[in-house]
């Protein structure tokens, strides 16, 4: 019977199974991450991913069963409870929202760590597993679904991805309105709070499911980094969701292969690559740091050229042209240093705006230069 069963591992290598699971996890997180970034809730994922540890421990005490689906449900509900307690603390007005995050998650995380070390006192808590997950173990825990044997995390994450996609498709309009204009949402008559907790519940369940494969820290990265990059380069929520998924896929692929090549932690590497792609996006997107600098430089150069063109155009054909535009005297009249003016003049000649008139020994405008001069004059109303 076993031989007749369709095994995923017969067709796809173990490594590729890890990669596919990573990609599906990354997309599931990135889709929700878009809404979290837009709602300025990024650090809530930090709180969520840390406090889930306590949720899992408590859920384990109740179920006493490691394979139980109630473990995921319990931990997911605890995640929602975390968000609720942050809101509760922030709403007392005694502390700011940021501080509420900063006080809730260390408490839950500490409790989680303490409970584990108390009830597993003869085994040292393996920090790598809590923080970085067990990515390499993904293909080892398999399960059967519709006659196909596949890694359990792959199945879990695919289901979560499906749920997330369905949620976003169903409530797209509501999510959009309540994200960008909460007042409008209230006026339109649907409860923003309800949607907020739906979103948080999904984020929590996604984080719990992802936790066991990728660990607490990468969960944050998967939620926020692709969505933040997509936020920078798109102006439409639809495209943002698509671009974020693309970023998530690319990050996972690059991270996976680099990690395998260097024989280092896969989830750690994906987090590094996600940060890197996001940073590169910040540098090079339309209004990015480097792009803005380049644009400034180009503008400054063009301004210098234009100044000289206007100067030549103004004096050309006048009595003073010999003095103002002469090869040796022009630098004085531009009031620039010799070096700077000769550099600018050389560039103007090279770009065919002006030519050196050898008879009168002055610079005159070419046809292209004259066009530019006329354009500048109309533009600035000279």
């Amino acid at each position, binding site marked *: 019977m076993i031989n007749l069963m369709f095994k995923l591992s017969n067709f796809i290598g173990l490594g590729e199974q890890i990669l596919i699971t990573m990609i599906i996890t990354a997309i599931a997180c990135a889709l929700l991450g878009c809404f979290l970034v837009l709602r300025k809730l990024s650090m809530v994922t930090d709180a969520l991913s840390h406090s889930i540890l306590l949720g899992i421990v408590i859920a384990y005490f109740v179920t006493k069963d490691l394979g139980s689906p109630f473990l995921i449900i319990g931990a997911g509900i605890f995640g929602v409870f975390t968000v609720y307690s942050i809101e509760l603390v922030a709403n007392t007005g005694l502390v700011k929202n940021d501080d509420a995050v900063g006080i809730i998650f260390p408490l839950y995380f500490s409790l989680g760590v*303490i409970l584990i070390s108390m009830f597993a006192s003869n085994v040292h808590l393996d920090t790598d597993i809590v923080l970085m997950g067990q990515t390499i173990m993904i293909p080892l825990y398999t399960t059967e679904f519709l006659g196909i044997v596949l890694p359990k995390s792959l199945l879990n994450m695919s289901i979560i991805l499906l749920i997330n996609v369905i949620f976003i498709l169903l409530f797209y309009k509501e999510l959009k309105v309540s994200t960008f204009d909460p007042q409008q949402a209230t006026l339109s008559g649907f409860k923003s709070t309800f949607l907020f907790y739906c979103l948080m519940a999904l984020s929590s369940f996604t984080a719990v499911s992802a936790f066991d494969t990728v660990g607490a820290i990468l969960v944050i990265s998967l939620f926020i980094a692709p969505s933040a990059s997509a936020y920078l380069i798109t102006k439409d929520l639809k495209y943002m969701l698509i671009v974020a998924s693309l970023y998530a896929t690319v990050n996972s692929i690059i991270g996976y292969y680099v990690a395998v090549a260097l024989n280092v932690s896969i989830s750690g590497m994906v*987090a590094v690559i996600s940060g890197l792609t*996001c940073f590169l996006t910040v540098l090079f997107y339309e209004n990015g740091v480097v792009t803005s600098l380049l644009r400034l430089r180009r503008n400054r150069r063009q301004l210098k050229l234009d100044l000289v063109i206007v100067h030549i155009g103004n004096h050309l054909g006048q009595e003073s042209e010999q003095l103002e535009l002469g090869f040796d005297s022009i630098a004085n009249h531009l009031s620039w240093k010799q070096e700077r003016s000769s550099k600018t003049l050389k560039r103007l000649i090279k770009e065919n705006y002006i030519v050196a008139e050898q008879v009168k020994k002055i610079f005159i405008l070419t046809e292209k230069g004259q066009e530019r001069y006329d354009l500048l004059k109309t533009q600035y109303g000279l």
Partner: protein
Amino acid sequence: MEIMDLMYLFNLFTASKIIDIGSFQLAFLSLDMDILSSYVFMVVCAGTMILAAAAGAIGTISVLKGQSLIGDAIGHSAYPGVVIAFMIGMALDPLKLFIGAIISGAIAFALIQLISRHSKLNLDATLAIILSSFFGLGMVLKSYIQGHEAFAHVSQGGLKNYIFGQAAYIKNADVYLILAVAIPSILIFIIFYKEFKVFIFDETYAKSIGIKSNFMYALMLVITMGLIATGLKVVGAILISSFLIVPAITAMQWAQQFNRVILIASLTGMFSAFLGTYISSIYPGMSTGPSIILVMSLIAFLSMLIGPRGILAKYFRRRKFINDKSNV
């Protein structure tokens, strides 16, 4: 059929034995004099208490400035610096690791500033990205060390302590380092006390009387980063930010004057450090960081509940108001 573990982590539970909660409380109530008077405990306790006092005082600045989560991001981001310093020095010299932590924390802070100033990403998202990618880098480097034969002969078990902190491993050298950072930090704070006060509550006015806000930010940052880097070994990279945030929140529930807030923050920090270190000394399995933070957070929540402006006070005031009204 294989066992369907949700997490490999929970294999740990099956091999574990359960500690009797009753005896835990008993030991907690009657402080064990043997532990209190032991040299190791005194060293550890001195270290954590001084650190907590300094962090509590300095933390009030960043909390009042509304930048509490930056400490969290820098704490996480200091970790790769520790690992790199270890890789270069091939040893767990506290000073070298401290310098590594400072450098990587500073790079992270510079990146946070760059991204949040020059893009439309808000601070929250920037912090989350920097925090996760830097910590990811730390884990990558750590896994690289573990698999590399060049590091096979060097003991690296201690690196783990920089994530959760383990006071049992605190040595005299660590305490000296804590002293060397905490005392100058507090001194700087005292010297610039007036400037800090104006800078925190009215930045515009501070500018108008000639206090350079860039300088004040830099000063605040240098002190905060120094404390975070020294605290890594005691509390760990993940939870060190609480040393800065939680005592300040507690203090703000009780006092409204800046100097009192600072004093209360320092004292609650010290008290939590003492109790937390004591608890973790009784149970060697319990990491120091989480134990201290547990005490700290409980005090904070209690303060929010019973403080003069707390939840209970508000409730009673409201009830009194309703009663008065119904009497009329």
